[in-house]
């Protein structure tokens, strides 16, 4: 037994002390390497003719993530609105209702995006009829945005909260009337020296909807409880936008208030199946004109693969998406790397080689890019694939 104990100790000590590896040596290749490295090649596949389409209506009008307000922006002229429910005129303190005498009020909007290069951008807040819904047109809203209905303006130079504070006679402008069922409607437009726009958080955005805070006093013996506030959150908010007319079949269009998406289909090259390793795959889309949107507040073009191709309602491949921040006013080809999605097309049981393109945030962005479709004479959608073929190095 002592013999084996000795042997075990020696082997263990040696293993701990010496078992290290660092092997790599530089060489000149391919002359001195035992075989070539992976062979890298490039190919381009065009989308299948007339198998691409634009589908609209992925978003309900109430599901918009942002309110758009603009003044003559080429991407669309937009006005936003919000309504507040009937509010209480008293607060409950120590179990008793006390009438609140207003001192001031603050109306807060959360700005998500704007073009900071435009100086002097203001949000003009008007009181409008609370009888308004998603079918209300921009013209109908504009008709109510008169100098008489103006509550005030908010200078907007950055993202974050924008507050309009009312006091004194200004409070009379937000007084509730029976004719409006004691509800309050607000309309928003943008004033700026040049066409621009502002994106504001909607009811669906991260708990920052349009909010009204009322500050006042109550009559109570405890002087520390005299000052009280009432907060009201908008119960509806939306926007109306006049956009360019939808394009014809020669163009693919994504974005818009209702959420338009395009589906494009390709044929995966059979030669790449089984052995090729996809190094890079880039979808190239050619704009049909200058890309419309709001400068300084880019939206993302999102591309997803599909699990099954059933047209407009094709389910997506989970966890696989590629995106590209869309510039504004450019006409250059837009390239989106989607190696992981295209890589699935060459698996043993591949999903359909189709892509769905959309905009993020969908329904809440000024971006509404139009690209040439397969029916266009030029600039058809295509994918550039760079791939590697095994070379089986290690020759003797």
């Amino acid at each position, binding site marked *: 037994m002592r013999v084996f104990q000795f042997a075990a100790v020696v082997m263990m000590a040696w293993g701990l002390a010496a078992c290290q590896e660092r092997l790599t*040596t*530089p060489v000149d290749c391919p002359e001195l390497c035992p075989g070539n490295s992976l062979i890298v090649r490039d190919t381009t596949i065009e989308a299948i003719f007339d198998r691409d389409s634009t589908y609209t209506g992925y978003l309900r009008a109430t599901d918009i993530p942002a309110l758009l307000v603009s003044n003559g922006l080429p991407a669309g002229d937009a006005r936003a609105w919000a309504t507040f429910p009937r509010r209480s005129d008293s607060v409950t303190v120590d179990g008793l209702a006390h009438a609140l005498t207003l001192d001031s009020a603050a109306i807060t909007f959360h700005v998500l995006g704007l073009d900071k290069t435009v100086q002097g951008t203001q949000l003009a807040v008007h009181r409008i009829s609370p009888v308004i819904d998603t079918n209300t047109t921009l013209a109908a809203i504009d008709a109510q945005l008169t100098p008489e209905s103006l509550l005030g303006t908010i200078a907007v130079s950055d993202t974050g909260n924008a507050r309009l504070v009312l006091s004194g006679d200004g409070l009379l402008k937000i007084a509730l009337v029976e004719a409006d069922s004691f509800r309050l409607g607000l309309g928003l437009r943008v004033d700026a020296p040049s066409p621009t726009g502002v994106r504001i958080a909607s009811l669906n955005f991260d708990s920052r909807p349009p909010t009204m805070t009322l500050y006042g006093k109550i009559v109570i013996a405890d002087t520390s409880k005299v000052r009280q506030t009432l907060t009201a959150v908008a119960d509806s908010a939306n926007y109306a936008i006049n956009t360019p007319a939808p394009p014809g079949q020669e163009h693919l269009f994504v974005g818009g208030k209702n959420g338009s998406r395009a589906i494009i289909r390709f044929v995966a090259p059979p030669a790449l199946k089984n052995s090729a390793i996809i190094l890079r795959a880039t979808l190239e889309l050619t704009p049909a004109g200058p890309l419309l949107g709001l400068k300084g507040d880019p939206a993302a073009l999102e591309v997803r693969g599909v699990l099954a191709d059933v047209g407009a309602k094709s389910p997506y491949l989970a966890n696989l998406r590629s995106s590209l921040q869309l510039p504004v006013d450019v006409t250059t080809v837009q390239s989106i790397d989607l190696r992981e999605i295209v890589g699935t097309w060459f698996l043993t049981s591949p999903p359909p080689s189709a892509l769905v393109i959309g905009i993020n945030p969908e329904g809440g962005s000024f971006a509404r890019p139009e690209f040439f479709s397969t029916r266009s004479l030029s600039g058809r959608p295509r994918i550039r694939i760079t791939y590697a073929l095994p070379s089986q190095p*290690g020759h003797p």
Partner: protein
Amino acid sequence: MRSRAGLFLVFAATATPLAAQSSQFGVRGLGLPMRPLSVRSTGTGGAFGLFDSESSFNPASIGLVGFTTASFQTVQSWRRSVSPAGVATAQDNRYPGIFVGAPIGGTRLAISLSFSGYTDRNFSIASRDTLILRGIPVETTDTLRSLGGVSDVRAGIAWRSSSNLQLGLGIHMLTGSNRINSTRRFSDTTYAGAAEQFTVSYLGMGVSAGVVARLGRALTLAGMVRADDKLRVERDSTRLGTTKLPVTVSGGARVQFGDQFQLAGSATYRSWSSADQDIVDQGGIGSVSTTEVNVGLEYLRDPRRPNNLPLRLGFYRSRLPFPVIRGQNINETGISIGTSKRFVGDRAGFDLAVAEVWRKGGAGFTERATLLTVGISVRP
């Protein structure tokens, strides 16, 4: 007998990771040839390999095994490689040899089973290049890594005709594989890296025969010849071809000066050029026949206890069979020093050898390596 059988099983079970020190000269052909020597023989530059009972070189030397003996050795290598592409320092650790031998009681026969490296193809090489991808130059870094080699499993038997003459016969099975991993990475990270892996496996057989003859009190001569069949080469179970393996012929002499000092020399020829066409056909550069000469000495401090810290010195020079560039021979020169120590009534101990090796391959390829070989021996 049960303990002997158990010992055989233990060593057989741990015998798979056979390989030895790596080298940039192990990239081509079947890799860097290994020398099936014990640590004692390594310490003498290989000069005592034909006479050493624990080396797997000459089957006749098995006849000198007086007890059931098992030994295991491992090598730590530190090397500095110079090539036209640059300089690299590298290190690795391998387990190149296991030997178990025993006399057959009541007979003049002795048997052994040994596992040793035949060729070593452990390497990792890196290179840079620039490709034009989509009209833009993109720098690439390629790494090719190989792990494995060919191992030599020998079953040997020796007949001790007398105390002055031993004859031996060995049957060899050559087996092993290279796990090849090739990767390419791009400086432009929009391109994903790519890799491919496959395994090249080898299988072959061989036989060897040898003799050790003592002529008088001072002189001992030994010789061996070995012939290996074609090595079958497969890539991921697809047959790539065969590689004709060399015939090995070796002879040597050992001279005893008194009780404490002995000197040995040997020369070995391997007809590796017979594999040239097969290797070229498989995409390689080729092979050349090799000659190796070894000179070494051993000084025993205590002749009654020969393994009590003896001094061993050796020198060898050989040609390597697989050139990096055709027509440019690779020569290897080594010097070594070694010793050993036995404990518990000589039933267990260790052997130690340190070798400094220089390799020159022409065209700017050189290498210097320090090899520390440690072995343990047990006599259960």
